[in-house]
């Protein structure tokens, strides 16, 4: 145990995700020894982010104003909504530049062990948005793990009566990878979800490149 302020700082840092007691101690001493101006800037960045950044009232992405830049962008299509778990998923999909519709951030996935059900997510707000007649398709882009799949199943069940087209991101092989390195589950999914390459195949959908599958739900 250290005295007063140092220990307090270590305790606070230790509460951050992915930081254990040892790392917290290392960061605390780095802060102690670092240039005071740099550290003031860090402190400011933290307080400013808490003051200024809120969630977009339409899509619940992080935003500095009432609505986020993506929701205000008039060049984007209003016809398709891509439903993701977190704001960082929006960034990931935006990097692909393969999608030009709107987003909806749920704020997580259904996870009873952590006490998260549909009422803790922005599902009600999603249903409200679907009252807009311009919307023709919803893409479910939740994570391809158990909780993400369960959330997708829940949304399909809830949204199906609305009669809007619902699609789910493809799971399969990462682009540029080797077939032999794919694990059994991903490979099985890729075979299940194989595409017809005959000339009569429908034109490529709006999402052209399947996102690289994250580590799938299983291991022995």
């Amino acid at each position: 145990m250290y005295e007063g302020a140092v220990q307090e700082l270590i305790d606070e840092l230790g509460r951050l995700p992915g930081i254990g007691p040892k790392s917290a101690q290392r960061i605390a001493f780095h802060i102690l020894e670092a240039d005071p101006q740099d550290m003031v800037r860090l402190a400011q960045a933290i307080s400013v982010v808490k003051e200024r950044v809120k969630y977009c009232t339409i899509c619940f992405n992080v935003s500095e104003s009432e609505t986020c830049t993506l929701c205000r962008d008039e060049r984007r299509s209003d016809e398709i909504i891509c439903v993701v778990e977190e704001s960082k998923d929006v960034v990931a999909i935006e990097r692909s530049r393969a999608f030009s519709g709107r987003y909806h951030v749920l704020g997580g996935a259904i996870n009873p062990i952590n006490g998260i059900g549909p009422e803790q997510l922005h599902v009600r707000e999603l249903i409200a948005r679907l009252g807009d007649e311009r919307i023709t398709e919803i893409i479910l882009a939740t994570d391809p793990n158990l909780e993400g799949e369960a959330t997708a199943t829940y949304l399909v069940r809830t949204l199906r009566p609305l009669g809007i087209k619902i699609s789910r991101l493809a799971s399969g092989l990462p682009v540029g990878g080797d077939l032999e390195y794919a694990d059994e589950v991903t490979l099985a999914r890729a075979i299940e979800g194989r595409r017809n390459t005959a000339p009569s195949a429908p034109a490529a959908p709006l999402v052209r490149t399947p996102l690289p599958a994250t580590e799938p739900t299983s291991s022995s």
Partner: protein
Amino acid sequence: MYISHVSLTDFRSYAQADVELGPGTNVLVGPNGVGKTNIVEAIGYLATLSSHRVTNDAPLLRFGTDRALVRARVQRAKLVTSLEVEITAGKANRARINRANPVRARDILGIVRTVLFAPEDLALVKGDPSNRRRFLDDLLVILRPGEAATRGDYERVLKQRNALLKSARNGGKLSTAHESTLDVWDTHLARAGARVLRGRLEVLRLLSPYLGAAYASLADANKEAHAYYQATISPDFESEAAENKALDTEEVSRIAPAALLHAGTAEIEDMFLEALLNTREKELERGITLVGPHRDDVLLTLGTAPAKGYASHGETWSLALALRLAAYKVMGEDDPRPGAGPILILDDVFAELDATRRTRLATIVAGADQVIVTAAVASDVPAELGGTFLKVSPGAVKS
């Protein structure tokens, strides 16, 4: 296949041990506690990456060390493969095949196949249902390595669903949100569970003919041995159905309904969903999932009586051995290439059997590519088995 050389470093009681083995029968003889079982445990570990005696790896390391090494040379027809597994406390194990760069330990699964008979097998007959479920699940993974993930997927859905049931119970009443999410978990549970069930039923179907034959050849044939899968999702399931009752054909068809035996995954999924719907009220009361492969059992019978509770010690042993022998036959049938037959390991088995059964077991296993036997007393091992005797003394093995 056979193992021609095993080398242990800091494994169990051995700081270092090298054992030369040959095809056919090898008998490891030595007094209690010198480390005979440790050697066969290491061979079993190469085949399954788990010990037949303990559920975690920590006790496998020699006391006070943090790393054990098991090396072996495997001969399969003309092909020689050298294997090396490093067991590290609290870290992922690493393996090497033919001294190449390390790979994930599970990549070596399937190179060595063993069937291990041990005194612990009595639990297959007398123990709780989890022993019998594990027996089927383990065999399934050996036959279809791709199914290794199925069981884990099911367990994960089950945990989430149980958490939801518990929170619904604590909340006092079932909200519509609870109800609709429960529907979602039901579909996922049924989908994952149907695969687990289909796999187990398939394994049991393969085992059944061999089980009857193996029991008949081990014990006196006046009682027939059978195994029936008791599925909790089956509409007629009652937990007490099999107890204290003679099993006539009608009773048996209720316990193991033909509809389930021949059902495809999709049909099982439907049955599963229906069972979940029927038990939902009870599940909400108890806050736990009451039907599904995690609560199933295999009913073993001798003649018309259930083996558990009715069989004698000798009958129980014979039935447990018959289950292992059936597994051996199924594995042999799965890969019939010459030199691919699994290695049979008989750990301290003969001491438990009478002279007639010893001789019968010896005759049955004599045809295996390799048999490794451990015995405290050499005279317990029937002469019919023949083979090479190796003397095990603390920390050393000599022929």
